[in-house]
Every structure is written in C-alpha cells, then in structure tokens.
C-alpha cells in the first residue's frame, strides 16, 4: 500500500491520497495521470491492468486501487 501511495505522491505532491475518496470525479487525476499511474503500477507490482478496468470506481481512492491490484494479482 505504501508503495502505491508513494507513486501517487510523486505525481501530485500536494494531494493527501490516503484520505481522498474521489480522485477521478473531482478531476484530481485526469486521463494522463491515470495512464502514467497504470504504467507505473504494471511495472512496480508486475500486474497488467486491462483497459476495461480503468473505470472511476477502481481509481477513485487509493484503497480501491489496492483492491484492484490484489484482485489482478491472485487471479
């Protein structure tokens, strides 16, 4: 989880990701950030997030992201 927060912070240092609950809906993360995030996660956590998983529900908070990563990991 810590690694994920660290990646997020490197993109937007002034945002408190641990608490934020709607990163997409509030427009904090836009399409460019999402893609950078996905490529980072794929390389760091060695999973491949398919395009259909890139939906607001999965990216709105760090926890949701972590849940997605774990799901992809043990599938």
């Amino acid at each position, binding site marked *: 989880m810590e690694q994920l927060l660290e990646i997020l912070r490197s993109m937007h240092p002034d945002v408190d990701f641990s608490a934020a609950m709607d990163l997409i809906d509030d427009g904090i993360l836009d399409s460019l950030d999402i893609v950078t995030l*996905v490529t980072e996660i794929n390389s760091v956590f060695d999973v491949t997030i398919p395009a259909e998983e890139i939906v607001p529900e999965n990216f709105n908070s760090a926890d949701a992201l972590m849940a997605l990563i774990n799901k992809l990991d043990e599938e």
Partner: protein
Amino acid sequence: MRFTSYEFLGFLVLLFPLYYLVPKKWQWGVLLAASYLFYAFAGWDCILFILLTTLSSYGVACWIGWRASAEETYLACHREEMDKERRKAYKAKEKKRRFHILLLGLVFNFGILAVLKYTGFAMSGFNQILNVIGQGTLEIPDLLLPMGISFYTFQTMGYLIDVYRAKTKVERNPARLALFTAFFPQLVQGPISRHSDLAEQLYMPHSFDRKEFIFGLQRILWGYFKKLVIADRILIAMKTLLADPEEYRGGYVVMLILLYSVEIYADFTGGIDITIGIAQALGMKLRENFNRPFSSHSTKEYWNRWHITMGSWFTDYVFYPLSVCKPMMKLSKWSRAHLGNSLGKRVPVYLATTVTWFLTGLWHGAGANFIVWGLLNCLVILVSQELEPLYARFRRRFPNLSSSNGYGKFMAVRTFLLMGLIRSLDCYRNVGTTFRLWGSMLTVWNWGELPKGMLRLGLGVADYVIILGGCLIMASVSVMSAKRGLRERLYQHPVLSWVLCGGLLIAVLLLGAYGIGYDASQFIYDQF
C-alpha cells in the same frame, strides 16, 4: 433535412403527438420509423450504409455474446476437473477468440468509414507523391458521404467494444439496435451516446410529462436562437473573409478567430441543445456535450468541457487501450531501461496521447489541416503537462495571486484565444495559408481600416449589435444556469418564463438569419 428547415419543424410537430398517442409498447417503433424517415431525406442510398453498420454490429455483438455464454457454461460444468492453471489458459484463449470477432466488426465498419470518407484524401496525398516522381495522377472518385456516418459508426463501435468488455448486455432485437444507431436527433452531430446509458431509455415506454416536455421545447427554442440569430448571422461575414484570405489579413484574421469562436460555439451548442431538447421532449436524457467550455483555465480542462462525448469516446476506446496494450508495455519497459526512469515513464503516455489526437483530428475531417489541428492540440496539452511543476512552484510562490479571481479570468481568456487560434485551421482548410495568415497577424498592421472594413463583409452595424447582444445573453444564461437549472427556477414563475420564451421566439423569427435573404447554412459539423 437540416434542423433549420421547415420540413424538420413539421416533422417534429407530427412526431410528438404521434409518439405520445400511440400505445406505449409501440413508442420505440415510432421512433425507429421516424429516424429512418429523417435519414431518407438525406438520400435513399445512404440508408444502405447505416443498415450495413447496424446489421454487422448486431451480428458481431450476438456472436461475442454467444461465445461468452458458451465459455461460462463450459466452465460451470467442468469446474471440478479443471485446476486454476488450465482454467486461466482456457479463459485467455476464449478472450482472444472474442477479441478476433470484435476486430472483425471494427475493421468492417471502420473500413466503410475509411473508404467513403478518406479515399479522396488518401488518393490526393498519394497523387502528390506521384506528381513528385512525375507519374501523373489517379482519378479521385467522388464518393457519397452518408449523413452523420462518423457519429453513428463511433456510437455502434462503442457498443461493440462495451459488449466485448461485458459492460453492456447484448441487444437481441436488431430493430432495437437499429434505433440505437439511427436515433434521429443525434444523427446530425452527436452527442455520441453509450449503449448502457441510452438503450434502456429508448425502449422504455414514456408517458407524457408536461414539465419535461416544456423544458424540452424551451431548450429547442434556445438552440434555434443561438443557431439562427447568432451563428448563421456571423457566417455571412465569415464567408466573405474566407472567400479571399489573401485580402483579409492582419487584423481581419484576429476578427475571424473571435467571430469563429463565437460562431462555432453558438452553432454547435445550439445544435446540441436542439438534439437534447428533442430527446427530453420525448422523455429521454442524453449526455451533455458541453459544460461552459470558455470558462476553462487550461487546454486540458477545455477538452473536458467541449464535445465531451467525443473526448470521452476517444479516451475510453483509444487512449486507455492503447496505453495499456502489450506492445506499449514492452515499449515502456524498454524506454525505462534505456532512457532512465523519469523520461522512460513519459514515453508511453506521450505516444498514446499523440496517436489519440492524430485520430481525433482525422475524425474531424479528411484534410491535412484537421490532422495538424489535432496534433497542435496535443502539443499544447503535452507542453502544459511538462510545465506543470513550473506552475506548481509559481502557485506556491504567489498563493494569493494564483488563487485570485483575476488570474482565473486571465487563464480563461488565454485558453479561449489559444483554442481560437488553433481552431482557425478549420476555416482556412489549408495548412500553408493558415500559418501564413497567423504570421500576417503580427506583420500586417491594418487595424485602422478595420471598422470600415468589417462593414463591407455583408453585415451592418445593426447585425454586429445583434451579435453582441446575443453573446451577452448566452454568457448570462451560461452563468445563471451554472448554479441551478435556469428552467427549473423559471418553472416557478410562468409569466416570466412566457415573457422570456416569447421574446426568444420573436427574436428567432425576426432576427434569425434564415430564408431567402440568407441561405441558412448547415451546422459546421454537418458534413460528417
């Protein structure tokens, strides 16, 4: 049949009562018939292509749906003897096969679009190469371009991809899918709806709701006001300016940029208001295609507020798949290894953005200027992405200035002008001329003769006053409706709403640029 023709108004006047009188279960049938009648006005032979697209996507969607259910039943009944590994391999194989079926549908339909819309462009490009090596030229066939082909093709392909991603259920009834593809209000210029949003609404019976119906009519009237009174009036001056770009240089180019920004806003949002208004009068909710675009502070934000459904289509179906597909993953690993982490991280994103914007430009029109328009937008977005840390430091150093209202206004004006500049590529349709004229804005200084010159473009002082008044009305409506729906508030005061609507109706009939004096032009986006 254009939105601004008597035939279309007659068509609506007949459709609405019929739609609400016919038994509920036949309502969607009436819509389907109306949509194909509307389409037939554009030409019988175009119907062939929209049918081709509808049937092909119906077939492909059913095939994918059938494969998916076959996979589930197979997995269900062989659950015990298949361990995790074999089940994973089987699922991957099935997904690959479904992907091929999807690819078949995409290639076929995008093939139609490419052949009908871009052969001319491709061949003229090819001819240029031939001329260079002196081999003479190919004869370019003048192919028929069915109305709204770009819009309905994208909408059905979105449906196919959603079916492949199991985001929406497969439509078993071809007639229902035909209605989804050819729903007449959005045929002309979108919005590009998603099957999961629109499908249910289309087939659900709708009982007459007086409030929704009145809101719909009000929005249609508002669309016609923007379109006929403002957009088509400006078009008169623009036609003169564009007829002879060499003569109207310097200050005129600036005027053209300003006029075109207002004209395209009024024309496009007007058309979309008519579309959404018709849908609302029929009891349906279409996605908003604009969200006060001229108040955006950056180009990125602008493209989240202008032609939203197109932007989200390209993001969901081109940008994301492109940036997470296997070759891109390999590329990002390679670039991370060789170019170091910070640069390597950017390569896949920038490549995906550039390709997406190239396709967006190409989608807008078969012309080099559209592609350059797309790439310029991409360049601005990527540059501002790069400058992000610089902006962050600036905001930290001057916190009160950067959060002040004035700075916000400055950024909005800057984005408005920048977008206007790039958008003028649409007008001049030739990249060379456009760049030359951009240059002339700085070199040629003819602001002195501008006041007289502008009156020679076919518009009198009264016309410019009407345009200015129109802009003020549009701005104030946009500000008022930002907080809470304007029509909602007006509904409480029927007298006031009748006065305003009556005023709008009189303004449209009296000041509209329509009829024999003017030839009310097509929507700018109409030639898609």
